[in-house]
């Protein structure tokens, strides 16, 4: 049975508290809960497996170092997703401007699904990369993490209305970019 948000928050809180009490297995629990999801956020933000791995590792490293300063009144998932988005944006800024997807034909190679799946993956990746990074984050959180508008607003620390207007605009761009071939 799928975990509700309230249950997830409670589980996160318990693991954070246990980690701060010195229980190493709590760190494992948090990594197990989030590493796949954060990796996928970074992957969609960066369209590069290696960079996504780097971002995921950096986020966890930062998160555990800073965990002592984490305010338990806030939601852990908002905090760690925000770090992931920000770290992905930082990674994009560090990228050499001359590097393009065409320059890296194997960019999605490791673990990429075969045949039609690979083609769809490639198209989605390219379409997302056509968005502004800030807008890409909105689309990724909505469609690859299945967050509500309110949850996205909490992660990105922007008003809900801003989430909606920017998400709708970005999605319209994607519709036009992907065109008829989207079906």
């Amino acid at each position, binding site marked *: 049975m799928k975990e509700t948000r309230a249950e997830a928050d409670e589980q996160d809180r318990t693991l954070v508290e246990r980690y701060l009490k010195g229980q190493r297995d709590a760190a494992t629990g948090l990594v197990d809960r989030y590493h796949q999801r954060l990796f996928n956020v970074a992957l969609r933000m960066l369209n590069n497996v290696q960079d996504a791995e*780097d971002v995921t590792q*950096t986020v966890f490293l930062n998160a555990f170092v800073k965990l002592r300063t984490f305010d338990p009144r806030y939601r852990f998932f908002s905090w760690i997703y925000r770090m992931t988005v920000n770290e992905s944006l930082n990674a994009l800024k560090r990228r050499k401007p001359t590097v393009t997807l065409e320059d890296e034909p194997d960019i999605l190679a490791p673990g990429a699904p075969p045949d039609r799946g690979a083609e769809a993956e490639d198209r989605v990746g390219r379409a997302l990369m056509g968005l502004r990074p800030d807008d890409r984050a909105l689309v990724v959180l909505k469609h690859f993490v299945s967050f509500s508008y309110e949850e996205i607003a909490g992660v990105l620390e922007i008003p809900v209305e801003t989430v909606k207007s920017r998400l709708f605009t970005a999605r319209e761009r994607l519709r036009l970019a992907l065109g008829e071939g989207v079906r």
Partner: protein
Amino acid sequence: MLKQDQVELIHREIDGANTPEERAAFRSLVETNAEARVLEAGLRSVVQLFDRVGNREPPPHLRRAILDALPQPARASSRTTLQRAVDGMRLVTERMGEAIMSRKAVLIGSAAVAIVLVVAGIVTGWPPRGGESGTIGGVEAAARYHGRAMTEADVSLKNPEIQALFQNDQVLQLVRSDAFRQVMDNQSYRTLLASQAYRDIVANQAYQQAMASQAYQQLMGSQAFQTLQANQAYQSLIASQAFRDLQANSAYQSLMASQAYQQVAAGQAYQSLMASQAFRDLQANSAYRDVMASQAYRDIVASQAYQQAMASQAYQQVAASQAYQSLMASQAFRDLQASSAYRDIVANQAYRDIVAGQAFRTLQASEAFRTLAQSQALSQAFMREAMRTQN
């Protein structure tokens, strides 16, 4: 033309965010408006494409790599940050074949600590223990050859300093060896000894303190460290062009001198290292990436000797010492690293063969030797004198 609120209604429907009333309004809209139907269909197709793509399984090593690089909970362990970084480095290198790890700042930084430390010692030979330096003219000896040119007359057994050197059987044996002859004939070695950077480093108080520290001497004398030095991968790396290029890289030098790096070495917060501009610059450096990706580097980090040396208390004491940190941050050390003579001699096999021995350390501690070694003629006179000396 759809109105803005109609467009938003359709988007919210796609997201499943409409109220029952809004859903009714949406159904009415798409039944009566062709443009609305086209927009809805297009958006649903986009969403379906996203759903089809879905989420990807992370690479299988990622979870393990994350866990191994994580700091230990404070109450669970007393291991230092540096030690954790070393452990992380080992894991990182296990998967280095797949790609160069560009964001493993701390982990890589720890290896850099080790390499810099090693090279710092190699450059001048490990100074002898405190007691010896005074007897044969160590770094604190009077600069008796300064201000006038040393002559061949100074390079004879009449010179008490030379005499003292040759009374040491190990030194005598070394000076008579082919390896020693090669080093003495090496232009880079002479250039290095004549350089201002070398003189500055030898005179540097932090250098003298670091080298004279008990922790440093314990480290140098440890089996792990000596095994590491004899490690072929280590020697290959030190001799590689990529490593030499890396040392000449200003970002690398800046990183070594940075406050953030020193904090890491001292086992304190290493977050600032990752955020430092110097580290980011270094990551973009091709020589750095070559070193990190090299088989030699991977072999070193995977070696037991390296791991033991890095985990040793002596190493951590040295890395955390004020003297060592001052040395790393000193202009003299940066100048030395930037010197091509330094990089060339460190890459020289004969030099590396002899440098780890006590006899060479003794020689290097002698001001007379350091002075005569700058001249080929005086070096040859020195070796001739050694050949004439009775055991």
